[in-house]
């Protein structure tokens, strides 16, 4: 709870830095507040309190995800230093990031449908603005519009679903809804089923899973790279945290009914995302499709819905987000054109960092003993426990396809540069970002229990 209040106040403080002229120090304030908020979340560990008349519930699940978002934001700051250079917009960007973090924390801790809606709106509205934050680039404006329209549309689906659930159960509170569904399990009115379908549709839009993924590649491609990194890590993690929390606490009793929907979506997403990524020559776009494919694996964990899927999701999201922040550091350095060819000669100039990026790539592809492998291992394990055998086979095939395009990145880095080509060079912050993400990837790979055993 204190975490949420700190982050919200930080957003207001960032806006006020414009009025009271402490814009210069806003980054220091931001780092201090986010670190402090992480500390407050750690202090609350092991407790489980409800606030605002059962609107939010800060249990270990909520705290673990809050800590994940905050730590990822701190790493993210390293790669987005230049994004905050402009004096005129710096305070606004920090405010928007803080507000979307507050939304993410609400999404991991809500215990009421109305709070779920507020969280998803705070998160998305800030993201719409951030996607269009590069005002001199028309593609950024296009990304903002393409993000906003499907986003608003999917919010409509979510609201409709909530209305139907409320109509059937007479409550917005998650535990009341769950109790009502348990009591009327034998003859559920069709309204509940329709509501669940609408909620699933809306959430699949938000996490960019196929067949509702079409907005994602253009949005990820057009937005400024730091914003893309933010969207494909923290916002994705928050949406998944909300997805799982909603379905495990409300609809787990009728899981037999909606699991097939998620499993089919997951299978299409894994295969489709990975195959489309193979054909991309632009690294940013390739990472966008790979992020869609990773949504598919995560959906399997949601569909499995047993004791293992909670740690599986947390671990997978941590492993994936850390590795992708490192990858996006590289993309950020490639300028406006992120063709894979531009990477040629990178390994010759920066052998150490090329090796680290290779490590991150291998982690995303799921090669042991790196974090990504254990993420996939936990997800597959929890799916097999719930007898989802064929989806796991599909997932294994999909990750084999994934290995191919991840190796294209490595291949390009280690090829000889074309004559008179401009080779990508890294700044000090980039180097530290890549170093930290690579170290975390290794650490989580060697000792996966650090994260997997805490919830």
């Amino acid at each position, binding site marked *: 709870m204190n975490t949420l209040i700190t982050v919200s106040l930080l957003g*207001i403080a960032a*806006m*006020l830095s*414009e*009025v009271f002229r402490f814009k210069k120090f806003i980054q220091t304030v931001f780092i201090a507040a986010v670190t402090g908020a992480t500390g407050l979340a750690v202090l609350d560990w092991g407790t489980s309190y409800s606030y605002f008349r059962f609107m939010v519930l800060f249990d270990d699940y909520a705290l673990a995800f809050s800590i994940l978002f905050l730590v990822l934001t701190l790493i993210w700051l390293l790669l987005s230093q230049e994004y905050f250079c402009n004096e005129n917009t710096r305070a606004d960007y920090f405010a928007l990031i803080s507000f979307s973090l507050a939304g993410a924390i609400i999404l991991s801790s809500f215990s009421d449908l109305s709070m779920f809606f507020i969280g998803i709106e705070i998160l998305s509205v800030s993201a719409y603005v951030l996607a269009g934050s590069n005002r001199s680039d028309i593609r950024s404006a296009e990304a903002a519009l393409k993000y906003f329209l499907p986003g608003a549309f999917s919010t409509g689906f979510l609201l409709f679903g909530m209305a139907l659930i409320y109509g059937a159960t007479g409550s917005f509170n998650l535990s009341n809804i769950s109790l009502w569904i348990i009591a009327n399990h034998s003859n559920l*009115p*069709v*309204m509940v089923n*329709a509501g669940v379908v609408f909620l699933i549709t809306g959430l699949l839009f938000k996490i960019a899973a196929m067949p509702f993924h079409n907005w994602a590649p253009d949005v990820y491609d057009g937005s400024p790279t730091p914003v893309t990194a933010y969207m494909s890590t923290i916002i994705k993690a928050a949406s998944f945290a909300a997805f799982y929390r909603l379905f495990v606490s409300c609809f787990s009793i009728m899981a037999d009914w909606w699991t097939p929907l998620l499993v089919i979506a997951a299978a299409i997403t894994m295969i489709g995302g990975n195959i489309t990524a193979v054909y991309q020559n632009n690294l940013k776009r390739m990472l966008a499709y790979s992020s869609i494919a990773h949504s598919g694996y995560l959906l399997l964990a949601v569909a499995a819905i047993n004791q293992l899927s909670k740690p599986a999701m947390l671990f997978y999201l941590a492993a994936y987000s850390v590795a992708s922040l490192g990858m996006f550091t590289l993309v950020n350095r490639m300028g406006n054109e992120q063709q894979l060819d531009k990477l040629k000669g990178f390994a010759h100039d920066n052998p150490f960092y090329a090796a680290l990026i290779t490590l991150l790539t291998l982690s995303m592809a799921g090669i042991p003993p790196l974090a990504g492998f254990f993420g996939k291992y936990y997800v597959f394990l929890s799916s097999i426990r719930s007898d989802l055998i064929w989806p796991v086979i599909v997932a294994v095939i999909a990750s084999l396809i994934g290995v191919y395009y991840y190796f294209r990145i490595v291949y390009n880095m280690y090829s000889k540069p074309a004559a008179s080509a401009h080779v990508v060079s890294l700044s000090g912050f980039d180097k530290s970002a890549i170093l930290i993400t690579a170290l975390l990837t290794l650490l989580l790979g060697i000792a996966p229990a650090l994260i997997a055993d805490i919830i």
Partner: protein
Amino acid sequence: MGESAILVLIISAVVFSAGGILAGKLLVKSKPSKVKSEAYECGVQTIGKSWVQFNVGYYLFALIFLIFDVELVFLYPWAVAAKQLGWVALIEVIIFLFILFLGFLYAHKKGALRWM
């Protein structure tokens, strides 16, 4: 009852909306001309193009107006029940107004209220 009613609703919604468009396509004779495709402006002849850019100030003013309008909407229910709710609610409302006031300061500082 339940399921069939929803089915009937969905079918009639599809038939109603698709039928309207389809009937329009089938029944209408299409004879476009230059005069017809002009923007209708109360019968007055149009001057210039209709693709005009408005000053962004209009939108900014409207947005800020909207925020304070919504603030008032929030204040009405509180005002009606102010006596029963007591001091705690009063303090909460003051905090709410204060936060909005900070937003106003921000908008002012950003020059959103200056007419360009």
